């Protein structure tokens, strides 16, 4: 098997909170390990506040990590010199949720896509312009867009510009942070198809962050489910949707409205996600878990192997049980 392009090892992110009641810290990401292989899409799914975007920002080196390490092509980003770091960073790009705010309203589209080239040593103006045109055509935007401003474009077109900008430095990994959440479904379909096509043509890897399970399923080969800063289950996509093992994954899947289902929605759990400021003891899901036992209240479970691709962190999961189920 090839080497991972991106590896996260026990990554922790804490945000300090200074307040009247002393200095506290808030752990947004709690010992997360994850590998992304060349050409694959890893989906990161979870509800708001679970730490999925924070993780994406750390991969992008937009936030320093508190503990653990992030390796890009086996190289530690934190150890690299300033020059090397810049080169590494060029290989990892990001597309944000809202293209309205991620594109400079005072730049023309041509300038927006050209900017990364200009900053990374493309000196020749004409060459830059040619590259920009090529990039725009990759996202199906014509030459006429060069001199337009972001406000003259629709949401879907703006997201295409953001993608063209992310592609400008020939990245190997793109972090997609809810790239279609602000778009209507007909436009979402265009963008998802475009992302898939680009991945095939350019052999890109994606770290795809979304709260939308159907979208995640559509694009990802592997999915990690996050809850309160931890990965609670990680698996190949088909396996996860067909046979979710963690109670949180099950709850999430049963809560999503399904177009092919006309029964009233199930409410698996009536409670809400606890505050990450005061995380529960033991397994962080235990207050909402229907199967929680004393063990769950006291000890945080570790990720257990189900098969090479499928791992789950739940005390109630035992390999044996799984095998007998498989036989039946």
């Amino acid at each position: 098997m090839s080497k991972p392009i991106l590896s996260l090892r026990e990554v922790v992110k804490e945000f300090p909170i200074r307040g009247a009641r002393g200095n506290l810290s808030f752990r947004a990401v709690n010992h997360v390990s994850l590998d992304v292989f060349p050409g694959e899409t890893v989906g990161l799914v979870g509800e708001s506040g679970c730490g999925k975007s924070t993780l994406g920002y750390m991969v992008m080196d937009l936030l320093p990590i508190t503990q653990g390490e992030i390796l890009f092509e086996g190289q530690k980003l934190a150890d690299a010199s300033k020059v090397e770091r810049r080169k590494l960073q060029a290989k990892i790009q990001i597309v944000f949720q809202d293209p309205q705010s991620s594109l400079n309203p005072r730049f023309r589209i041509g300038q927006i896509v050209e900017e990364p080239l200009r900053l990374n040593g493309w000196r020749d103006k004409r060459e830059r312009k040619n590259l920009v045109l090529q990039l725009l055509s990759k996202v199906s935007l014509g030459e006429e867009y060069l001199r337009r401003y972001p406000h003259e474009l629709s949401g879907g077109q703006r997201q295409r510009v953001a993608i063209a900008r992310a592609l400008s430095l020939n990245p190997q990994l793109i972090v997609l942070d809810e790239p279609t959440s602000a778009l209507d479904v007909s436009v979402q379909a265009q963008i998802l198809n475009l992302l898939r096509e680009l991945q095939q043509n350019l052999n890109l890897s994606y770290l795809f962050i979304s709260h939308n399970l159907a979208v995640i399923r559509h694009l990802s080969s592997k999915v990690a489910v996050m809850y309160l800063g931890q990965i609670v289950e990680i698996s190949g996509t088909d396996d996860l949707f067909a046979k979710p093992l963690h109670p949180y994954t099950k709850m999430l899947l049963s809560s999503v409205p399904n177009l092919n289902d006309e029964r009233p929605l199930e409410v698996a759990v009536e409670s809400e996600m606890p505050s990450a400021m005061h995380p529960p003891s033991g397994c962080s899901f235990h207050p909402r878990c229907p199967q929680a036992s004393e063990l769950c209240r006291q000890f945080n479970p570790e990720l257990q192997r189900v098969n090479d691709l499928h791992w789950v962190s739940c005390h109630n999961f035992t390999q044996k049980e799984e095998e007998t189920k498989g036989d039946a």
Partner: protein
Amino acid sequence: MEPLLKIKDLHVDFLSYAGAAHALNGIDFELFPGEFLGLVGESGSGKSLTANSVLGLLPRKNAVIAKGSILFEGEELVGKSEREYQALRGKKISMVFQEPMNALNPAFKIGSQVTEILKLHQGVTAKKARTEAVRWLARVRIPHPEEIMNVYPFELSGGMRQRVLLAMALSCGSKLLLADEPTTALDVSIQAQILRLIRDTTDSLGTSVLLITHDLAVVAQTCQRVAVMYSGNIVESGPVSNVLRLPRHPYTKALLQALPHLDGPIKALQSIPGTVPNLLTPPSGCRFHPRCSVAEKRCQADRPKLLSVAENHYVACWRESHHV
């Protein structure tokens, strides 16, 4: 059965420096007592505008109801004065909005906001209003309702705020609840809770619901009937199972093919070419024709009417209904 709400040929125009934008272009639908109707469409299709027209919440400066009628319990709402609307809002027709934080006043405690509406519409004493309010908060399954009466909106989660708004909307015995994207700002597990709650409480009260959403999957699992909007028109309406399983309008079909699914094989998504038309210069004839894969000549020339194709199933498309 008499419909509770009957909208007939409703046209709403926005006046701008560039001319009039025909934002609602003659919509017709009926809502029956106790019914759960979904109104779906993409942004700018006019679904929120429809709800705002019913409640008389259109901006007075530049929006006009150019034509048509809105009958509620047989009474004409178009042309009512602000004072008459005030007697109606929150009492007979109420609304739940997308952003519960914006719908609650951040400077007042939950208790005072929930009792205010009871005092206004029911004319009860402060004490009675308070016990009523606590009862309603409990009914929308807010834990420890007495304590919640004394907190400010910012202290509550999005799901809890939406519960408070639902309690306020239903507390005066509304016959009609307009729910405008009530769960769009919420996480899926909370969304399931709130949708279930809306359904359970309105079921037991016999309240009709007009659920506005962009999510067809939400409609599939909550509504009985659905109306699909495109650019200020209703293009298809009918029982949920008919419209979502056997869509007849090209737009509905395209919308369904554009959605990624939770089960079944993963196929390339079919996107709809082009963009939503500019309302200042809408296309002639059927407004969907420039994006439609099966458009014919007459689609450009004349606007198709919403006609029946099956029992309770209506479609506005030249290819579907008009040659029957």
